[in-house]
């Protein structure tokens, strides 16, 4: 660890566009990811709002059925591959992992830059489906065969985009694994590592070991489309269920690529804002690994109604229930952390608490889907759509925005308006529930997902849901507007506005290029050893 030779922060050392897009500084690459991710996120939100607008009334409101199919597919592809999968690791992992480990960069800074470029190329490929041929794929983000092989829309390009984006994800994972093994500050053993680093470690192994499977699976679709190899088409000896196996062998673990980093964020936020040691450090750390491991063997729960064997269904259902154990361990430990803490209610804490609430609804509705009998009724209904929005958006999305509010003063050295942030949070939270809770209800009533039209008895919940989308967008815009305003006119903050003992708060805000101006001191007795316990 060297000390900085200048007082300049990492924004000031170099200026100009090229100093950013060719930067190998992990902090700048994290911000590049942030800006690009937020752009694609807003595109995805717009598509989502358009879908809700179409579903306001039965029959046609604003778009044709075919357009609707393409809109929900593009919404899924953008939100999954361009936003949630990279989100927390690529933005906050890149920016804060090296700082939290007390080092000056990731192990492979150039690979890190390459991963951003690959991400941008993949994103452009995904969005390019809008402008040529028959438009974006209309298969849903899952690209199920045989339809994905037959449709004339731009499935090949969408699939290639996901393939390319996979490489970006693999490179980030590889980088983090090596960084965590090799670059921890002297004295920081694995068991003294921040839990955010632990969660990124588990995530990285999934990225590294599962992503190649989706790559090869998607290439099989291309082979099937162009050469009719007969991998999935039963009339020439293929098996359509094989596609679903291969797709979900990656895409279920991918759920944990999205969720585990969020768990890590929550494990950072709660100790800081309750000024108290995290409850059950070891249990939280190892439950991440347990989730990552067990999560590899539950993929079949997406296929209970696909004509899978009875034995297969039972095995996958049992395994699915097993994942609930390490997840519940985390939830209970978080709640226990708050107990008798001196709680400081700030926007990041609000997002963390909302995370626990929304993620619990998402997780418990997941058990309803993981049970064989109830899944027969609920499979492919709006219950599933409600469930995964609670998990992904209510979980990872809220953790992402919580992290943004938490580390904002560190990244930019300024503070946003706390009152406005709190108001935006309340609107956002209410909008979220008004938008997605009716989906759970209407799904229980039997409304199928991915349908352009619906029966009159589903009208009222759909109307409520669409109103919710407007509330949510209002909250979202207020939140982002407040952050952007803070960026320009926010009050300057010192090193440690939240009184945290984590390493990133020991350095100036914004940090200097080499991350620390003086040697960081590891807190005695572990990363969460707050004095007032």
């Amino acid at each position: 660890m060297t000390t900085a030779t200048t007082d300049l922060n990492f924004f000031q050392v170099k200026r100009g566009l090229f100093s950013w897009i060719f930067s190998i500084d992990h902090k700048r690459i994290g911000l590049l990811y942030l800006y690009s991710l937020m752009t694609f996120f807003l595109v995805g939100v717009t598509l989502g709002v358009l879908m809700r607008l179409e579903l306001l009334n039965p029959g046609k409101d604003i778009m044709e059925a075919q357009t609707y199919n393409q809109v929900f597919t593009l919404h899924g592809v953008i939100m999954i591959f361009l936003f949630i999968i990279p989100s927390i690791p690529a933005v906050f992992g890149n920016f804060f992992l090296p700082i939290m480990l007390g080092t000056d960069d990731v192990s492979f800074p150039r690979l890190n830059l390459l991963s951003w470029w690959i991400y941008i190329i993949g994103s452009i490929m995904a969005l390019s489906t809008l402008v040529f041929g028959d438009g974006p794929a209309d298969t849903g983000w899952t690209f199920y065969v045989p339809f994905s092989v037959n449709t004339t829309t731009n499935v090949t390009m969408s699939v290639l985009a996901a393939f390319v984006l996979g490489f970006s994800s693999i490179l980030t994972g590889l980088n983090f694994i090596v960084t965590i093994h090799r670059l921890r500050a002297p004295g920081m053993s694995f068991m003294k590592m921040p839990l955010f680093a632990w969660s990124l470690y588990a995530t990285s192994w999934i990225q590294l070991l599962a992503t190649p499977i989706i790559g090869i699976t998607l290439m099989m679709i291309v082979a099937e489309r162009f050469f009719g190899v007969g991998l999935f088409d039963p009339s020439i000896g293929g098996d359509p269920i094989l596609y679903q196996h291969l797709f979900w062998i990656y895409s279920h673990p991918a759920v944990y690529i999205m969720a585990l980093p969020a768990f890590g964020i929550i494990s950072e936020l709660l100790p800081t804002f309750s000024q108290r040691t995290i409850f059950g450090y070891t249990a939280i750390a190892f439950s991440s690994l347990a989730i990552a491991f067990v999560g590899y063997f539950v993929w079949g729960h997406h296929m209970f109604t696909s004509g899978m064997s009875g034995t297969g269904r039972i095995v996958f259902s049992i395994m699915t229930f097993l994942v609930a154990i390490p997840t519940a361990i985390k939830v209970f430990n978080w709640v226990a952390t708050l107990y008798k803490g001196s709680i400081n209610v700030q926007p990041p804490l609000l997002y963390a608490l909302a995370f626990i609430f929304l993620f619990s609804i998402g997780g418990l509705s997941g058990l309803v889907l993981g049970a064989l009998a109830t899944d027969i009724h609920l499979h492919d209904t709006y219950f599933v759509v409600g469930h995964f929005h609670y998990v992904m958006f209510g979980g990872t999305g809220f953790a992402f925005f919580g992290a943004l509010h938490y580390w904002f003063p560190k990244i930019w050295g300024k503070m946003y308006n706390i009152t406005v942030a709190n108001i935006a949070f309340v609107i956002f939270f209410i909008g979220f529930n008004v938008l997605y809770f009716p989906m759970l209800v209407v799904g229980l009533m039997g409304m199928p997902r991915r349908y352009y039209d619906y029966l009159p008895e589903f009208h009222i919940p759909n109307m409520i849901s669409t109103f919710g989308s407007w509330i949510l967008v209002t909250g979202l815009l207020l939140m982002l507007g407040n952050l952007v305003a803070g960026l320009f006119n926010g009050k300057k903050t010192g090193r440690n506005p939240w009184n945290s003992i984590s390493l990133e708060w020991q350095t100036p805000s914004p940090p200097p290029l080499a991350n620390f101006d003086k040697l960081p001191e590891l807190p005695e007795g572990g990363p969460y050893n707050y004095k007032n316990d």
Partner: protein
Amino acid sequence: MEHKNEQPNEAQGHHISSYKEHFSTLAALLLLTVLTVAVSVFGADLRSLSVATALLIATIKALVVAYYFMHLKYEHKLYRWLLLVVVLLFVLFLVVTSIEYLNR
């Protein structure tokens, strides 16, 4: 305190393979390819085992490539462990999928 060194310094053990080793590896691969073809042409009575035989030969070829051409034999043990872990994971995927398929 110590900075854990879990891998040896790369500079220490950079193995340079001889021509002899390269060519014998090539010969082995070609031989195995001939064997694959031979089995598929003449081995019609293998029936359901023909896929298994082809996969077995392909696996041996992959290992030869990994060990000699890709220098796994001369690298630190860690890399062999990593390969083993990945292969085990792959086998587990196959086993779980087969449990489903064979009971359909």
